[in-house]
């Protein structure tokens, strides 16, 4: 096994880091850059920013946050929310992001996945999938942070996204997100075992047992966490120490 990447996921709305419950009901937490810097200093491996209300008129918000991040944070940064075109992706990469995460625009126009991965490399193109369980082994893809259903089957969509050139999948369980009751292990395992590209498990981490489960049972390549960090349940250092104690390889340093 190689090092599992531990990622801080910061959902932002306007100038604030927010934390949602099942992608509804938001609580304002404060300046996202300050949270990101704290996690960086503690040893987090990557940062994901998601602008959860990005509309046509508010796209500059996430760009500014990314630009400030690049001043004093020297780890990979992914940005998502409101990216609708190759030009949008280019602007956010120029602001200092290493990868873009795309959901809505990719569902509406799957060709965008190919266009972005051809132009900037597949390593830049993270396909963000919001999955809601429909039954055993079945999930439906949603967008707009769990508000809109698509009728698209998650398993088929992930496969298609990979074939179109996605370099990573950010897989969020709508059912588990914000609940701090553990990940949808079956969802993560299904997609991670099916695809030859890395899968980031997101949504549901409440404690380190959840993390261990999604790695050992779900075979996640990376884990995005929000609640445990934002509410100070554990520091990044504590999480890493506990991972090592349990035989999960993580970066030390």
């Amino acid at each position, binding site marked *: 096994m190689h*090092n599992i990447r531990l990622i801080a996921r910061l959902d932002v709305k306007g100038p604030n880091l927010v934390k949602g419950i099942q992608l509804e009901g938001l609580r304002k937490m404060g300046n996202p850059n300050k949270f990101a810097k704290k996690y960086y200093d503690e040893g987090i491996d990557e940062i994901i920013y998601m602008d959860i209300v990005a509309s046509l008129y508010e796209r500059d918000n996430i760009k500014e946050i990314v630009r400030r991040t690049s001043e004093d944070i*020297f780890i990979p940064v992914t940005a998502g929310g409101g990216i609708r075109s190759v030009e949008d992706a280019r602007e956010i990469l120029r602001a*200092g992001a290493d990868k873009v995460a795309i959901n809505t625009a990719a569902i509406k126009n799957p060709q965008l996945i190919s266009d972005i991965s051809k132009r900037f490399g597949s390593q830049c193109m993270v396909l963000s999938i919001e999955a809601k369980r429909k039954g055993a082994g079945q999930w439906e893809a949603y967008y707009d942070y769990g508000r809109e259903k698509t009728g698209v089957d998650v398993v088929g969509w992930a496969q298609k996204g990979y074939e179109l050139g996605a370099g990573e999948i950010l897989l969020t369980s709508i059912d588990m997100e914000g609940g701090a009751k553990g990940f949808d292990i079956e969802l993560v395992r299904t997609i991670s075992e099916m695809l*030859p590209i890395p899968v980031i498990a997101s949504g549901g981490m409440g404690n380190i047992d959840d993390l261990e489960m999604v790695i050992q049972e779900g075979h996640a390549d990376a884990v995005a966490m929000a609640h445990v960090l934002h509410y100070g349940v554990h520091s990044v250092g504590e999480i890493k120490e506990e991972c090592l104690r349990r035989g999960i390889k993580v970066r030390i340093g």
Partner: protein
Amino acid sequence: MKNVVIVDYGMGNLLSVQRAFEHCGARVKITSSPARIEKAEYLVLPGVGAFTDGMRELDSRGLVRSIRAFAKTGRPFLGICLGMQMMLETGEEFGIYDGLALIPGKVVMIPKNGPDGTSHKIPHIGWNGLLPLNDNGNWENTILHGISPGESVYFVHSFSALPAHPQNDLADCSYNGLRLCAVIRSGNVYGCQFHPEKSSDVGLRIINNFLRIQPLR
């Protein structure tokens, strides 16, 4: 203050590279001017993406000759990720294409399986430890000065450099049992497969080391 020139050829996240070098105290200029590149004190060739696209973009800006000329001056040169891969002679991606040929060797796809036959994810994305080669373990006075074997840096790549001569291979990493080249070197010409500008403190130490390298006479 050290003056660093970063080559802009339309590939990749230059701002992050610039910020990391500035953080280490350098004065940075980003340019696609052949003259400025040849006159640089320290030259950095970053980049992400495909080998063929990268070489085509360098070529269309008339930069291949000036980068080769700079590398011959003995002043410090650092290629990062795609910039490192292009330092080799050829890249094998949809055919065989010429690189900058600063160091003998080629760039090939990462094998799909490890030595034990098990598969792994490609691209190789994530933090992985730097390992010395058995007979070439001395990192003193190189860009890896003071780095301990096993310290992790951030990789993201699907292709991997194969330097022709072991003396040009300064460090590897291990991925599912495969040895992948992490740092190449010939004199003051260095290349990192990983991203030092995205590798936290270890990466910044490597950049600081690079900025301490003195030009060969």
